């Protein structure tokens, strides 16, 4: 399958700060990739590098086979881009902006546009300067969807939106991604919507891609383990492949990151004397556990 996004050793430095470090990433056609990370982790910088808005300090990236630095009009006719930072023409009404954008795309689908205007409840006759942030984001999404792009890049599309707007926006993305095999790369620091959208998940921390795998695989290999033993545990207990290890008296809790049938059998064998409970984690819980683990590691390094 052809990759719609490829990066090799992608690095961006801002003086002494390395915002993105040696990023190797691929996204296959038809996949929805959620790019997770805390604020300042490097998500937006990565997306700007992908879009050619920033020049890399090292490495390279390609969108739809074209180097990001060489993306031209013909490439942008196949790429939809929505960013929370993007400045739309605030002096235009939504209808005027759509009229401006339409001739730019040979594949613009007017019926689809009308459909999205209705479904996303976009006030197209109001000047953008008078629109709320959510309304602007919905319009930006419409501008990115109406020409049926091959690749959709969304940078924090849901950030700062009220629940209703978020739901409408999410519904819009869900609808098109479920109908057509579009590739979507979206960044977020909030994981609620990721479970509904993503096929693959990547987690970036301090500019490094710490994790990149299918969502199902990720959820399959993370388990919360709760063990109650007959006797108190010795101090400094550790567990291979576990994070967030906490021992209190005779209770041991941890999150196993490489869970499998074999691992489960091994755990039950080792803690046969006690009671063991193994539970699944939501993506939010996995992400939080990872974020805390990364934080602890950073502190330890420091």
């Amino acid at each position, binding site marked *: 399958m052809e990759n719609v996004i490829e990066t090799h050793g992608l690095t961006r430095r801002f003086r002494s700060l390395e915002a993105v470090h040696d990023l190797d990433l691929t996204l296959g056609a038809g996949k929805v990739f959620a790019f997770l990370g805390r604020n300042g982790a490097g998500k937006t910088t990565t997306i700007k590098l992908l*879009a050619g808005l920033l020049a890399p300090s090292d490495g390279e990236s390609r969108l739809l086979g074209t180097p990001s630095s060489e993306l031209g009009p013909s490439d942008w006719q196949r790429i939809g881009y929505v960013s929370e930072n993007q400045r739309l*023409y605030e*002096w235009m009404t939504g209808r005027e902006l759509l009229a401006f954008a339409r*001739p*730019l795309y040979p594949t613009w689908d007017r019926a689809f546009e009308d459909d999205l205007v209705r479904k996303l409840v976009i006030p197209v006759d109001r000047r953008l300067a008078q629109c709320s942030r959510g309304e602007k984001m919905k319009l930006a999404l419409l501008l990115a969807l109406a020409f049926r792009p091959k690749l959709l890049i969304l940078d924090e599309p849901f950030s700062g939106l009220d629940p209703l707007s978020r739901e409408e926006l999410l519904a819009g993305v869900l609808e098109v991604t479920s109908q057509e095999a579009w590739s979507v790369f979206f960044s977020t620091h909030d994981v609620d919507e990721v479970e509904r959208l993503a096929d693959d998940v990547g987690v970036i921390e301090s500019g490094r891609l710490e994790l990149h795998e299918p969502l199902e695989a990720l959820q399959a290999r993370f388990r919360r383990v709760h063990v109650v033993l007959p006797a108190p545990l010795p101090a400094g207990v550790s567990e291979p492949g576990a994070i967030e290890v906490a021992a209190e008296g005779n209770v041991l809790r941890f999150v196993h990151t490489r869970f499998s049938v074999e691992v489960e059998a091994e755990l039950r064998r080792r803690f046969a004397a006690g009671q063991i409970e193994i539970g699944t984690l939501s993506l939010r819980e996995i992400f939080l556990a990872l974020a805390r683990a990364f934080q602890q590691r950073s502190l330890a390094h420091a």
Partner: protein
Amino acid sequence: MRERWGMLRHLMAKDWRYVRAWAMTSWALVAAAWAVIDLDPDLWFLTALVHVLALLAPFLVFGRLLQLDPVLGDTSFWLTRPIDRRLQLASKMAVGFGAVLGPCLLLSVLPLAFRGLDLAPRDYALAVGSMMVRYLFIAWVMLVVGGVARSLAETFLLATAFVGMIVLGTKVYERVWIPADFVHEPSLRVGLAVLLPLQALVSLYVLYRWRRLAPAAAAFVLAGMAIIAVGREWRWNLMAPLMAKTLGKSAGTRIDWPIRAQILAEHGLRSSEEVGGSGRALLVRFEGIPDGVSLVHTAYETTATLWNGRQVPSVQQTDWRMEDDPERHWIPSPIEAGLGCPRRSSTSAIEHDVQVSGNGLGPESLARLEGRLRFLVVRTSVSQRARVFGGSLRFPGGRIVARHGRDGEAVVLREERLAPSPFPWPHQPPSPQLFDPVSGDCLVLEMPAVHRGGGTDLPLAATESRYPDWSRRRVFREMARGPIPESTEMVFLEREVLGAFELPFTYVEPTRPPEAAVSPAKQRARDALWEKWLDAQAAPETSAAK
């Protein structure tokens, strides 16, 4: 190709929609600048404000146009749309020059037709050219700055820094200077006026093509170096094609109507202004000039003295008696000394010989174009003598502001208006109330200039101004050097045009001057000096022959 043209029009339509209100405001301001020109001089502040706004407004609009779609930064909407960056730039330039600056240019010139000036089509062409090069110079700054600034505030800051840098640079490299006479000076300055916007466009193109500031800055520097190299050799007088052609070299050296005149000699000038060629001067002898009548050379130093479209080529008079004249002519001192003329007198009646010179400011083009020398015969009379205390006084139709610098230096800035009447001010003596004595001192010599270049029978709008801004400042610094008197007698002059005639500007071998109506003793002294000067002129040739 058709697709690209369609896309360009689409982008232009969007750009025009964005700036149309601003552009129309600019047009209105330019038109208003004409409307306020006849306001009472007491309202000079309003007039000046409108004029400044009218000059700046189109460029602010241009800046906004560029900033609508910033090419730098990473938040612009258009950067992630299928828009060719070169088309984007082309759209900005087309709308900026075609729909903003162009109409302003025309609006700033067309009203000349309604000023009763009786101008020939060529005069309009000259005015358009003059205005255009001035606009181009400001456009240069705005193109360079507007491309990288993201807001009007940034534009102001960067423009100030940029102009400051250029001014500082010119201190290092004197030959690059803000063009003074954009129109008539076939020199580096004219070259710069035309080429600098090209430099900005090269830089902008690189910026839009690659979206990198460093290559754009490098392109700016490289293009600048190329332009200076080209500008050094620039010999194209911007307005030359529009100027009247020579009548040929029939070169009658003697003209009998209405005043007898003879070209005595032509010699070089040494000027502090190097303009890529030596200036030349003619020594002309006139006879039969009645008392109180003087000559004004109408083709000399045609320049545009009023900005914002009110540039009518102006003329001025000069003569060799100005020992330390504003343009710093170097006049053979024996001749000057022997004639016993007052220094720095440019307005009193000319008794005999007149030196007409092309110098650093203006037309060496006189020589190059072999244009005719046109003289107006004018009667000059003193309309008022006034004792002025201090340095602030006001002329009818204009204004002088004196500012005092360090070390007793006084800088005089003038603001001028085009007066529609044939004279700079009404015939009746100005009211004493017009003077506004304040503490402080400044010696100001009034040098009326007649507004009109190249014509002989045209109505004369007049202005008090003689010099383009930068030159004027230098002039008055020079004049105020030394101890400043507590009070100064101001002499206001009026002029009446009696007639006009022409002399061909053609090299004539020096001949002995004819008898002149001066005292025999004075004439003898002059003749002796004249011989001495001719010998001095011939000496290098004799040496060379040996």
